[in-house]
């Protein structure tokens, strides 16, 4: 089936057939599959063949486009394909090919996300983003404590504050330790093997220890600390690598032009290490998000991880997906924020 369509697609490379034939092939493929009821057992083959036909159609269209439309076309392709996937998901799920209980259609996920955003959950006393539209009213009725209460009921804020506070608490000392390790051979020899050993340990595994150590095992202490620890080792080791990786001739130039220890650090070592330091920070941020979601699965009453887990327990799949969507948005947002900082701190790296 797909082989035949692909063969006809190749014949009209220059005519409108270049993109029309694969599209017709796609429609025929979908119609035949639906009429014969092939979807249930052959969905993977149909999806694969469908993807090939879509690629052929897009390539055919791109070949026929004038040069100045190439870039807009590629940009459109980058946006349209995900939309196509979502549309396919929607259709497969509503038509029952995909079980909507496990794979609810995107429209219902968006609906669930809206639900979570605007509604306050009386049972758990939480809301997704803390109902910011209530801030003016609360401010007049209860003053600042009322606004703080709004923040405290927010899942997004709970996760965000844990990630940011933990990240900063881990990364700042890590920068210092990594710097010393990079500069001082003795410190490096002493710490390197220990640090590398702890580095490979999944930090989530030490969460039980932290719950023992902190007086309130269910409070914010262990959660923030586990994020801080997971960020620490990544940032410290990459800072060390960054400092060690500075081109020796730049260090020599620094000292030849009379830089003292402090000037060396400020003008040569710190900026020279920054690119690799930021690599570490980016990795640490991703890890922090993974760790906090995992921690919120097991021990939290707020946070997006808790939200995913809670809706799994009550089988509210659309809200589960909605919470995953929020995790994605948080990840993208935090990474973008870090990239912004990176661009401000390292203007020479465009």
């Amino acid at each position, binding site marked *: 089936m797909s082989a035949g369509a692909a063969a006809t697609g190749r014949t009209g490379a220059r005519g409108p057939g270049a993109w029309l034939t694969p599209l017709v092939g796609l429609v025929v493929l979908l119609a035949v599959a639906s009429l014969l009821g092939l979807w249930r057992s052959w969905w993977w083959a149909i999806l694969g063949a469908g993807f090939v036909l879509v690629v052929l159609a897009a390539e055919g269209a791109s070949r026929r486009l004038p040069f100045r439309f190439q870039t807009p076309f590629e940009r459109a392709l980058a946006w349209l394909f995900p939309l196509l996937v979502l549309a396919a998901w929607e259709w497969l799920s509503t038509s029952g090919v995909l079980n909507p209980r496990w794979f609810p259609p995107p429209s219902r996920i968006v609906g669930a996300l809206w639900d979570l955003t605007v509604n306050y959950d009386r049972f758990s006393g939480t809301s997704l983003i803390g109902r910011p539209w209530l801030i003016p009213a609360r401010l007049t009725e209860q003053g600042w404590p009322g606004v703080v209460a709004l923040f405290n009921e927010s899942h997004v804020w709970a996760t965000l504050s844990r990630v940011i506070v933990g990240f900063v608490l881990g990364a700042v000392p890590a920068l210092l330790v990594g710097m010393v390790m990079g500069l001082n051979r003795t410190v490096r020899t002493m710490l390197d093997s220990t640090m590398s050993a702890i580095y490979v340990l999944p930090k989530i595994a030490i969460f039980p220890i932290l719950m023992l150590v902190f007086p309130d095992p269910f409070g914010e202490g262990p959660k923030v600390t586990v994020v801080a620890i997971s960020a620490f080792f990544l940032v410290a080791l990459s800072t060390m690598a960054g400092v060690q990786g500075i081109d020796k001739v*730049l260090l*020599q130039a620094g000292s*030849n*032009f009379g830089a003292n220890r402090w000037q060396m650090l400020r003008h040569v070592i710190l900026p020279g290490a920054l690119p690799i330091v930021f690599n570490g920070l980016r990795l640490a941020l991703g890890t922090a998000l993974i760790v906090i979601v995992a921690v919120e699965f097991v021990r939290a009453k707020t946070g997006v991880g808790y939200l995913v887990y809670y809706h799994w327990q009550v089988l509210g799949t659309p809200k589960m997906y909605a919470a995953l969507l929020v995790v994605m948005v948080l990840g993208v947002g935090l990474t973008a924020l870090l990239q912004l900082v990176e661009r401000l701190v*390292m203007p*020479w790296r465009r």
Partner: protein
Amino acid sequence: MTQKIVALQATKRYPSKAGMVTALEGFDLTVAEGEFVCLVGPSGCGKSTFLRILAGLEDLTVGEARIVPGDDPRRPLNNVVFQEYAVFPWKTVLDNVAFGLQMRGVGKAERYAVAERWLTKVGLKRFADYYPSQISGGMKQRVSIARALANDPEVLLMDEPLGALDAQTRAVLQEELLRIWEETHKTVLYVTHSIEEAVLLGDRVVLMTAHPGTKKSEFVVDLPRPRDLATTSTPEFAALTGAIWEDLRDEVRRAMEAQA
């Protein structure tokens, strides 16, 4: 003439897996103030090592190698122009040129004024706000040269500064170096493996041998100044480079065999 560089029986040995290696053996050299001296020799003859010892980047094992301080104690003794440019990627062209002055605590307005003057001299005024990643290799080396000159050292140490450049850029920079030297008459120690470059630029060419590195012979370049690339097509130039090559050829052969 005042002596600016004095080296007596300078010897450098360092340990390696194959035992002690002698990079430099009993090397004597004096350079007078305002003199442009070129060190030429096969790779591994210790010419860069000697320059790095003078720059304080390496220690001497035995003997003496020093730069004689001038009257002004605030003036730096030396600055190096490295083969790999060694301009700081995170500083703009202007900040790179002003680096030495900044390290010595010269105020912003003054150091930028000096840096801009030198950038104009090397034809890079327009690129003052560029970062090194945005300019070519030849321009980076101009920045490196301007950085050293802006710091106004007693002695300028140049370690194969044009070695990494293509032939055309190299020729252009050689002429620029000649022009700048005519203006400043700095004391220069210039390490190169190119005989032509040494004869074109230098007042004196010192030949070195390899394994161990030591002085082989010395040639006074009495070609009239100001020189430019046209100098390289004079018969005097050809005679001198020919004589030096005659002297060096066996050394290069020996060095190649030793490396094989």
